[in-house]
């Protein structure tokens, strides 16, 4: 099957070469070399060096997710619908994708949904006109339709942080289970420190701040909850959940929980930064700052800025490194097109009040 | 006067709008094939009376006899069925529609099952016929009404009344907004209609004009009907006096 396709590709390229040769003889040699490359030795090329990519992506120092050749079998064209360029997290993706595309020498086309996911199907129609080889989007609401439409045109779809679907065999993005686990590990560290101090002997509760309708959130905070529960050997009565699908605000739910257990102390992990920082501020406002400890997931500029102010109970966050996530999408897309293996994206960076100043300076004050 | 046949008669028709007693127990006779003028000062109750006759308003009390038969006029459609058609002062024309569609407004000819589809051909033919009958000068019946002159508009509105099978045609101040030439056109139109045996109820401010065209002149004052004079018997001075509220002996 595969060799048949190569043969076909060679035939097509040869035809193209012949056509081109009619007008321009000089390009012939180059083209012919490529034909031989593809058919005879499919993968005999040089590859990019991981260290070079780490240097290229400084200060983020991303680990490449795939070992990609310095020359591709085709001039690939990548497309991506960014959910909102004005959002710092997604803005990082955009910058990273453009840099990665340039680094690997492929064309990259982008459109901006400007925060309105409902426009993405229309944006896709336009984006597809660029004769893309592969397309991606972050569309929790519409990505399946986007994927189906792309498949219609014979194009692969690789979303970010979307979760699986029958139309998107390739899942890329934050590994939710691991992210939640890492967050819980960080929180355990913080809680243990407090238990050696003012929380000694206090009744400990865990609050999972989540959105029951978003599968990624269920996995993320669910994994955090079980990790935390195991570490402190909590029973089910001490592992609580505040779910946005109930229609109530996280602020209200956290406040109510604290009122119900006036002597307790509370460790919280939200599905995303804002979902934790909001209730944290509400608790502070109510004068109960000393009774909560928060670790958030995501960690772009706003939570970093907040952490720099040393809020008493905000222990730190797991940084998802949006720049590396965006960069990695390009690598995964290219690896898919070339039929090469790739690794899943990892979240490794845990930032606390001790490390946030340095990290903030690296990422946001370097220029 | 005695030889003329009464086609429509109101008996003690009364209409109030809250505290305003617009029409006070009016009994009035309208004669077949004649131009029956209704005059009176502003607020005398003329417009209310013709709205009652054309079904646009319902009386508080009193009744109507049409063709000698006691009847109720239940809304504009009921009036059409009795052969009463009003040509309102603003003519009730739709500016953005052509002459034909305006003439058939609300009584379009249809064809096909369920009377759903318009019979454009039939309406065009009938519109031509009616306009020819009243000697209207409208070169193109597909012209939008907004491009027509005052006289032409009047003809369209009258044409509509005729298409409805109007026997009694009520014309409310038909010449109020018109120039001299077009006023003559409208008076000719009224004359033509009378010639075809139609009954005209003409509301006007213009006494001279009324004496020029009307057969009967009825005067209203403060909601009451003061009386009806045959044009040949009455004098302008007498009618003017009645309009001012002087009851004739």
């Amino acid at each position, binding site marked *: 099957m595969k060799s048949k396709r190569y043969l076909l590709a060679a035939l097509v390229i040869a035809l193209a070469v012949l056509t081109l040769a009619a007008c321009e003889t000089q390009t012939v040699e180059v083209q012919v070399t490529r034909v031989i490359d593809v058919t005879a030795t499919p993968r005999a090329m040089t590859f990019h060096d991981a260290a070079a990519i780490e240097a290229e992506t400084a200060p983020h120092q991303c680990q490449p997710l795939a070992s990609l050749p310095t020359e591709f079998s085709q001039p690939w064209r990548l497309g991506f619908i960014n959910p909102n*360029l004005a959002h710092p997290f997604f803005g990082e993706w955009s910058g990273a994708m453009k840099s990665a595309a340039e680094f690997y020498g492929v064309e990259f*086309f982008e*459109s*901006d*949904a*400007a925060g*309105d*996911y*409902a*426009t993405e*199907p*229309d*944006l896709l*129609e*336009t984006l*597809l*006109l*660029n004769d893309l080889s592969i397309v991606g989007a972050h569309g*929790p*609401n*519409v990505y*399946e*339709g986007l994927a*189906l439409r792309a498949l*219609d045109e014979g194009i692969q779809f690789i979303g970010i942080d979307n979760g699986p679907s*029958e*139309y998107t065999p390739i899942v890329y993005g934050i590994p939710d289970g691991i992210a939640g686990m890492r967050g819980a590990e960080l929180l355990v560290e913080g809680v243990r420190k407090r238990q050696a101090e003012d929380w000694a002997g206090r009744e400990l509760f865990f609050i999972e701040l989540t959105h*029951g*309708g*978003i599968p990624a959130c269920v996995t993320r905070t669910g994994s955090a909850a079980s990790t935390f529960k195991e570490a402190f050997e909590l029973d089910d009565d001490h592992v609580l959940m505040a779910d946005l*699908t109930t*229609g109530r605000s996280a602020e209200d739910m956290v406040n109510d929980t604290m009122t119900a257990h006036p002597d307790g102390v509370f460790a919280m992990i939200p599905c995303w930064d804002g979902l934790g920082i909001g209730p944290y501020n509400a608790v502070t406002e109510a004068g109960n700052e000393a009774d909560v400890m928060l670790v958030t997931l995501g960690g772009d500029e706003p939570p970093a800025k907040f952490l720099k102010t040393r809020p008493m109970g905000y222990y730190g966050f797991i940084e998802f490194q949006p720049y590396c996530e965006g960069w990695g999408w390009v690598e995964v897309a290219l690896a898919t097109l070339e039929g090469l293996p790739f690794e899943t994206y990892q979240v490794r960076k845990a930032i606390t009040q001790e490390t946030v100043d340095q990290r903030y300076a690296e990422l946001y004050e370097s220029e | 006067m005695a030889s003329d046949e009464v086609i429509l008669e109101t008996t003690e028709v009364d209409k109030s709008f809250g505290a305003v007693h617009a029409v006070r127990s009016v009994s009035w006779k309208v004669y077949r094939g004649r131009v029956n003028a209704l005059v009176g000062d502003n607020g005398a109750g003329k417009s209310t009376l013709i709205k009652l006759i054309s079904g*646009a308003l319902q009386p508080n009390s009193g009744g109507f006899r049409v063709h000698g038969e006691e009847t109720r006029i239940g*809304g*504009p459609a009921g009036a*059409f069925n009795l052969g009463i058609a*009003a040509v*309102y002062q*603003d*003519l*009730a*024309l*739709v*500016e*953005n*529609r052509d002459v034909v*569609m305006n003439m*058939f*407004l*609300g*009584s*379009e000819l*249809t064809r096909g099952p369920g*009377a*759903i*589809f*318009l019979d*454009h051909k039939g309406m065009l033919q009938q519109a031509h016929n009616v306009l020819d009958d009243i000697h209207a000068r409208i070169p193109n019946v597909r012209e939008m009404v*907004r491009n027509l002159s005052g006289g032409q508009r009047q003809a369209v509105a009258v044409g*509509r009344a005729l298409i409805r099978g109007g026997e009694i045609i009520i014309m409310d101040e038909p010449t109020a907004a018109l120039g001299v030439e077009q006023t003559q056109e409208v008076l000719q139109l009224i004359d033509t209609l009378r010639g075809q045996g139609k009954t005209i109820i003409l509301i006007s401010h213009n006494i001279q004009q009324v004496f020029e065209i009307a057969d009967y002149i009825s005067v209203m004052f403060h909601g009451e009907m003061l009386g009806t004079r045959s044009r040949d018997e009455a004098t302008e001075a007498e009618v003017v006096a009645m309009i001012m509220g002087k009851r004739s002996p």
Partner: protein
Amino acid sequence: MPIQQPESQLATSIRSIQRKQVVQFLLDNGLFIAFVLEVTLFAIAVPEMFLRSRTIEAILRLSGPAGIVLASYTITLISGQIDLSTAQVGGMASLMFAAVFQLLEWPLGVALALTVVLTIAVGLLSSYLIQQGIPSFVSTLAVGVVSGGIGFLIINLAKQPGMIRLVRPPLRDIANFEVAGVPFVIPLMFVAYAIGWVVLNQTKFGAHIYALGGNPAAAALNGINAVRIARIVLVTNAVITGMAGILIAGRQLAAQPGVEGLGQSLTAALFAGVALSGGSGKIERTLIGLLFLSTLTIGLGILNVSAPMRQLINGLAFVFAILLDSIRQQMATR
């Protein structure tokens, strides 16, 4: 000198008539000129991208469901009603449908029937408010808010993350059904316009719609039942909007509270010369108005115009459309 004066007056009045004719010509044909100009400009700016059958297909794809709504929307506008609830009604209908069909797994026909009933209720509510003397743009704005609320309520009751997945066959296959490589909504859209044209131009009902929109008082005096027509028109519009919402959801495999693209109906219709005040306009032209806007969307996308700029341009297009309407009104009354 005394002889010259009337002559010059005549010349002035002739010139003013000529100017009026030029303006009228532009108003009548400006849309076609603008459309041709737009296509030409994009063709010059990005010829290799723009002048392709794929681009044309993309423009039509974009127009499809919105175009179907615009057909009934045009009729609504001509009848003198402005419906500002389309985006929310479309979203609510798609959510209702998705909840019943996808989540409860009831049969397709039942889900469709329930959705139709809901949209009929929404249309009846709008027409009831209008019957109470509230202007349609206020009534439908309020009904739009209510519909949006119902949509969110459905999502909430179903415990879904801001949308409901809609992947259950056969809807998925119906919504994405293609005839000879063309999505079936495109021919469906042309059928909708054909039906709209027949209704407006060949039926008694259509004649009454024009009369009602052009002069409601005259229509009433001539025995045309304004309440009945407003009710039929608004209910039809709500139902068709709801069906289009389901089609869009079926294509996106997800139902959401607001349906993108349906809100542009007003701009497209005004471009096409449908009067905001009702009573005039031709349905075949609104199709061009829609294609104009879809071409603008695709063209700006190809030129990679930034999102804020695109929104600004869309806003300006709306402003221009209102301005056009006002000029047309002035021409008509002068």
